[in-house]
């Protein structure tokens, strides 16, 4: 069951943009699985979803 759930939710990372500004590093991660394409922002140990698109 865990494997099924894991593969269902597994996201592949497509691209990562690493942004350096004002002594901070921010990561913008583009990823997708079979159903969704997500963009998340990782900053200061926190992760935040920026965009979530359902794939056609």
């Amino acid at each position, binding site marked *: 069951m865990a494997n099924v759930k894991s593969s269902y939710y597994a996201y592949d990372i497509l691209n990562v943009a690493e*942004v350096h500004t004002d002594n901070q590093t*921010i990561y913008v991660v583009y990823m997708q699985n079979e159903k969704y394409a997500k963009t998340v922002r990782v900053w200061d140990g926190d*992760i935040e979803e920026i965009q979530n698109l359902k794939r056609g």
Partner: protein
Amino acid sequence: MKNVLLAFLTIVPATIIIDGKAQFALSDPGHYYINPCPDHSYSDPCSETVFRDQSNKKMEQDNEHLNDGDSRAAKNFHKEFPLVNDEYWYKTSNGYIASFRENSVQTKVTYDKKGRLSHTISYYGEKNLPPNIWRTLKALIMLMIF
């Protein structure tokens, strides 16, 4: 009348919250629009190409295209990235962008009009990510999803 008042009290705070969130998003340094396609194939933020040269010496000596900001940006760039010599330069309304590729990683370095470093963006594929960053990102993504 009660219904009208209720609707007003619902809509106005909602508008303020949405508007406030938008302002926060704009002022938050973490909110960037990043072109997901770094290979210049579409939506490139660099609309005006001012000089595009693969030789540092030539670019710094080509006074026809350079002003103080240009040369300062170029000097700062070569100080920061001494091993890079095949960068492309673009002029934007806010300053300059130097773009180069190294070990399959595309990097854009932006400078303001006075040639001061503004920020750097590097685009990685999953396989190019340094292992420690890959592990951190994967762990955070798993935490977010579950």
